[in-house]
């Protein structure tokens, strides 16, 4: 990482288990992680404190993941978004890529797969001119 301060990651999944398992693994890698189970909470938090990377589920109560990531990209296009979902269809995958999503993981996934996706995102952030 070229930045001095750690990369900030927002995790959003309505099932707490997903964040519970990912957070410590990411923190060990030196990332700063905040977790949410409610998409509206996550969105209002993002408005105040932007994140470099967002990891979100697609199917959730409240506003769904697609809306959430669209809003995120509108507010801060350089934020890298990784989508995780249990109901991966080609259509949703295509749609999310159209919204500028960097990567797409189907649940259940391996922790190392998420680590690779995050590493890819960090690489892109590092390459972009500050």
């Amino acid at each position, binding site marked *: 990482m070229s930045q001095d301060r*750690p990369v900030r990651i927002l995790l959003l*999944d309505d*099932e707490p*288990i*997903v964040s*519970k*398992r*990912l957070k*410590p*693994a990411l*923190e*060990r*890698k*030196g990332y700063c992680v905040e977790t949410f189970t409610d998409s509206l909470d996550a969105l209002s938090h993002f408005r105040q404190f932007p994140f470099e990377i967002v990891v979100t589920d697609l199917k959730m109560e409240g506003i769904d993941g697609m809306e959430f990531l669209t809003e995120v990209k509108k507010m801060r296009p350089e934020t890298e978004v990784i989508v995780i979902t*249990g109901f991966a269809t080609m259509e949703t995958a295509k749609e999310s890529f159209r919204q500028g999503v960097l990567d797409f993981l189907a*649940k*259940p*996934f*391996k*922790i*190392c797969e*998420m*680590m690779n996706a995050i590493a890819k995102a960090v690489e892109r952030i590092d390459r972009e001119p500050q």
Partner: protein
Amino acid sequence: MAVLDTKPLTTYLRNVLFSKKSRPLPFPQLFDHFQKLIAENNRALETMADMGEKLGSEFVFDQKYINSSVTSITESVYRMIYHLDCMAPKQFHELFSVYNSIRSELESELNGHMVIPEGDFIISYGAIDDALETMVGGKNAHLGIVGNVLGLTIPPGFVISSRCFDILLRTGQNQEEVNDIIGKWQDGTYATGEASDRLTQLIVSLKLPKSIRKGIERGVAEVTARFSNSRPPTFAVRSSAIGEDSEHSFAGQFESLLNIEASEIPEAYKKVLASLYSPRAMEYRRTKNIKEAEAVMAVGCQAMIPAEASGVAYTLDVFNLQQKNILISSVFGLGAALVGGEQQADRFRISRKPPYEVCGMEIVHKKTKVQPRQSKGGIRSKLLDQNLCDRPSLKPEQLRLLAETAMKLESFFKHPQDIEFAFDQQEQLVILQTRALNIEQSKPHLVCDLSSMEANYPILMEGKGTIVQEGVAMGTVRLVKSEEDLIDLPQGSILVAHYSSPNLAQTIKRVSGIITDIGSPIGHLSTIAREFRVPMIIGTGNGTKILQNGAEITLDANVNRIYGGLKTELCYYEFTEEPFEETYEYRLLRRLLKKISPLALFDPASKNFTPQACKTLHDLIRFVHEQSVKVLIRKNYVNDSYIKDYARKLALDIPLDLTVIDFAICSLDKKEKLTLETIASPTLKTFSAGMCIPGLWAREPVAVDMKSFMSSMTRTFAANVGTPHSIGQNLAVTSGDYLNVSLHLGYHFSMIDTICSEKDNENYIYFRFFGGVTDETRRSRRAQFIQQVLSQSDFMTTTKGDLVVSRIKGAPRQNILEKIYILGALVSFTRQLDVKMINDTTIGKFVQKFQDILQQNKTMPLEDLYEPRQTC
């Protein structure tokens, strides 16, 4: 173009139309059901394997996954039963009710309702494992693991299971009364005190059914037998509530009665049971929104330990976190008053690292000690011998043993522990209870910015090999090159070895972590490491070269990284996280799998091979599959002239008793023997040619050594214990492009299901292999052999224990035929191979041998198979 010979069909139809018996299904329909059944069978087994794999610590899954997997597998099993019912109407009708009861249990679990399994009233401590938690309660389950898995001393005893609670308070008139009182409490008619009084009154006046009383008597007798030379034991009767998080939330709310005479246990049991409805417990549930339906209790009855000294050990001194010590409080005699905070105790602070030095002690003036009353039961305080008042209640060697044991418990449960212990008159350490230490208050002191620590510890290895068991281990490297290196292995070492040899398993209770150069995640050592939750990484390639004997290292098997030095911050950081094994989702999946995966039905020849004996979905799958094959083979082959004309024995160069049914053939010359040359189905022909490659089918009898034989007799996953003959016939069913072969050879089962057509998209091969006569290690070596061979042949292969599932999809016809040829050869070659797989090096050797034989016999004239053939 051949002319369709309709004679067999007419005969068949005549039989069907004019038969007085119930009408058998026309064969094409029967076969259609069979094919669909097989497809569901495969789907169900895949889902099951997938769910099992998720218990491995690398995966992140959520409840949606659990729900959809359970839905998928239950639906597949239902469809299997439906298709079997269509194939053999009304013959297996009981399957539906067995299925319904398993399914409703699964659904109750998914809906968060506690399902109290039907089981024993009384369970001995010696028989407890964590699977029995809903029967024995959290506290008892932990204690059972301490005794049975970790091999530490626990008091002899038994549990009056939650099943008794269920019978007493959840059935008949008592249930109505309990519900009535609780209803009136909930709607405000009764105050909490009144409701509690009424429920207590109801429970203490219960008459225990004979079956429960007899059970208790048996439990007592079993414990008493262990005290043959001394006075019969008295008992501590302790609550053990059931349910998520019961350990923390209900701590101290329920009754524990000490020094109870055997004859008084039934009364004591009722008193403890009634404490579930103490005003405090009821109010607690009300505030925490815990449903009354979830309030269930089991009760442990432990023989009283005549303790010389007792106390409590915290593996982490939460009052003084900077020091990072173990904190031990102890008194002479029983620990009851210490636990209750009524008695002053000695305090010792011990280092958390071997050799567990005493870092500090505060010895108080002890005036009394608590003892069991000689008569009437209960306990009393007695003046302590003057000479002992100012002496430490524990000796240095006792402190060291206690510290070492406490750290074992912490590393197993992956969380600091709060342990109740006693030293008996022989100075033997007995663990009375262990539970997670509440470190909620201390968390901020334990968490630090790990990334800033990174610079202090060099990374020795990273990302190499596979994580078998997650966790963090700190310790000294012990390089193991020979058996001798295992002698005097210091407690808490990190074992580093070239092979993950099963021999290393003997050290599992002493090591804190395992790293190997080569190994398989399904090998014996991996299985044991998971069972003991020892962090383990395998297949690092050169771990033994990089890691120096005697060096202090930290193994972070959560992210697959090995640091030089002891990175204690990481270990403490771990404590603040809930271990994967303690998460709700993990436990739910595990509980569900207990009703899904275990396979008890294995021998179709056994009297127990009945729908009623099916306890899990796997049993149902096995039963239905076996019966469907039987329906095809027996019923129609023997009685149905249409089929009779199509079922033939295949005569090959190898002594294989294989029945072939080929539906694609329009007419059959009965005189013509079915041989390799005359097989019409190209797929079956290719498969058979593969099986017949010279040098593959071992003709010499293989000596099964005594160890293998005994292990086959005692194995629980005994899908293969019977003789090959009792297990059923070998059958190949083919219809044009489709082929299904079920083989029971030399104690293992294999199944090949394939479509091999001109349409690439429709083509697939599904190959499943499991079983064997030898122990688990050798069978899993054979599984590894198969995996290696098939992976080299582009199969997608997964293994779990001795089960191998391989598939190829969407390949061109030529390609599929080549793979089928290899599968034929493989089935032949592996027939008795497990017996020969005496160590890990044999795997590679046999892979080479197999490839060599295949290489020499590459010239299978596959092009011959492209001749146009007659079809119906």
